């Protein structure tokens, strides 16, 4: 009689479970439905877009959010919150401005926790071939998040699900991270930096970290990023411009390319946030193809004169 050892049993169980998991991942109907998450419009005296400047990244992050009406405008008790910074590589420390400022991310984490959110997670997918663990560590974000009691989550390959993009003009489906679509709140936290192909890497471009095959998005990048924005719809976009990579992006490599701007930009409107961030580089939102395309799809406001912009200097 064949006798199954415990190890064999576990191995067989694991294989079966993996098979079932793959089965499910491959055939589950599209889960992402545009409109499931709607960025909350400002009410009363809340700013449409806020810009805070000052030498303390935590203080300007808090000030920028406060001007929008506070984090409670975006995060409710019990919410499932995902904070999505840019952690693209594992070979640049924060001062090189290739990845989002750790203090900005940690401050947002603390603010979300303070609302009584059910769960707050921080995650990103680095460049293909780079392990998230190594990138999380080198970026300084893991350490900063842990210091305020949080944990980083590695995005599981089986959770990228082929999802319809009904409003897409170039791409109509893509594999998108399920949890990003399912979360009540998505806080998009790009770093503002030069990008040799896109011109600038800002909020829209940062969403390439929630999909598979980002290289394919790089064809017809402008429209494809805008199509992705139409699906993902971050609740809040917070652009880190504390340190800005002015050239040789998206990875840089010389501190001479980094400019200290001590600025944080925030809005529920990803297009407006990106349009304002572009001005830090002497550009406009319409200069950047994906920002222009997203505005053309009605996903946000490109004309900053038409919205309330509150600028705050934090001493």
């Amino acid at each position: 009689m064949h006798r199954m050892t415990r190890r064999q049993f576990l191995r067989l169980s694991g294989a079966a479970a993996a098979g079932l998991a793959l089965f499910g991942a491959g055939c589950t109907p599209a889960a992402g439905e545009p409109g499931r998450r709607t960025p909350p419009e400002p009410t009363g005296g809340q700013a449409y877009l806020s810009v805070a400047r000052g030498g303390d990244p935590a203080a300007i992050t808090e000030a920028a959010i406060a001007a929008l009406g506070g984090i409670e405008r975006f995060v409710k008790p019990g919410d499932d919150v995902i904070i999505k910074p840019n952690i693209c590589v594992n070979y640049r420390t924060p001062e090189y401005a290739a990845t989002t400022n750790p203090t900005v991310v940690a401050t947002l984490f603390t603010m979300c926790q303070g609302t009584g959110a059910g769960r707050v997670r921080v995650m990103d997918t680095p460049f293909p071939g780079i392990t998230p663990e190594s990138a999380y560590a080198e970026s300084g974000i893991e350490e900063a998040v842990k210091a305020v009691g949080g944990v980083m989550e590695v995005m599981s390959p089986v959770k990228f699900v082929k999802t319809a993009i009904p409003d897409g003009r170039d791409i109509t489906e893509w594999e998108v991270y399920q949890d990003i679509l399912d979360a009540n709140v998505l806080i998009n936290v790009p770093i503002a930096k030069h990008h040799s192909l896109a011109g600038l890497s800002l909020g829209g471009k940062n969403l390439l970290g929630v999909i598979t095959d980002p290289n394919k998005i790089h064809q017809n990048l402008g429209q494809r990023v805008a199509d992705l924005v139409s699906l993902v719809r971050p609740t809040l976009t917070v652009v880190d411009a504390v340190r800005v990579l002015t050239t040789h992006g998206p990875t840089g490599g010389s501190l001479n390319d980094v400019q200290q701007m001590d600025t944080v930009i925030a809005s529920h409107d990803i297009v407006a946030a990106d349009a304002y961030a572009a001005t830090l580089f002497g550009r406009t939102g319409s200069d950047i193809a994906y920002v222009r395309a997203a505005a053309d799809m009605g996903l946000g406001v490109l004309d900053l004169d038409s919205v309330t912009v509150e600028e705050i200097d934090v001493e």
Partner: protein
Amino acid sequence: MWNEKWSSDQISNVKWCVRRMSWLFFICDLIFAIFLLAGCCPSEPPDPTTPPTAVPVVEPTAEPVASPLADFFPSAGVIPGWTLDGELEAYDSETIFALVNGQADFFFVYGFEQVAVRRYKNAEDVPLDVQIWQVADPEGAYGLYTASRAGDLADVGNEGDTDPGRRLIFWQASYVVELFARKTIPDTDLLGFGEALSAALPAGGESPALVERLPADGLVERSAIFFYDALSIQTEVWLGGENVLGLSRETGGVIARYELDSVIVRLMLVEYPDAGAASAALTALEGGEVSDLAGAGAQDNLLGAVFGQVDEASGRALLEAALE
């Protein structure tokens, strides 16, 4: 032993359960295999908009890989105190995305062929990443180097650029070498690596003749960038994100900063295959909405343009000197 404490009936029951479960798992896997074979989850159809350079990502392997560039890397101990850390990584035009992702086009426009990466570490465990980039020809290497300059002049290879103790980049023949230390290391170590790499690489390579056409008066030292595509110069001049100048590998261009009356302006020269192409580019440039364009002209197959807040006479004089 646990089975010594159980009755034979209990053991029989457990074995029965295990047998049933193993059959269950076998059936599950069988279904899964049939499912895969039947193509229930077809792979994504080819994207007709994808150009030839766009290829699926190939995950880098931890296994040692062969690379024609491998012999150029210094062995452990060549620079005292430094040892090799990990295996050599090699990337070609199909796998480069795993190294630089969206930055790949920055290298493609200069005729990228392959890159190899090795990591070293010193006694303090500070990593030093060394990348050797091979492009199609020395002009491409020169261009890639000039588009990457950010620091001080370093006397390594044909020319080098450095943030002392942290970063060194130089070009030589058809190669561009970049060294990056995660923390500041002795500059003598960084330069030692550079010199060892330079000694191992093929010698030679001239900067493009077009660069010599830049007028010397007012030229900001080491500001010239040789380019084939607007993406290499987008932080110098913004051409609207469109290829208004008809740039390609068949054209060569150079842009440099000039200080005129305490104002920094940019002079751009582009060499076309023929005068007609240069004339067409001039028409497109003047008809476009390129900000900061102070003046432009064409002479034979050469297009010239000046960008910046410069008085008309100074701008024209610079342009004429370049197009002579």
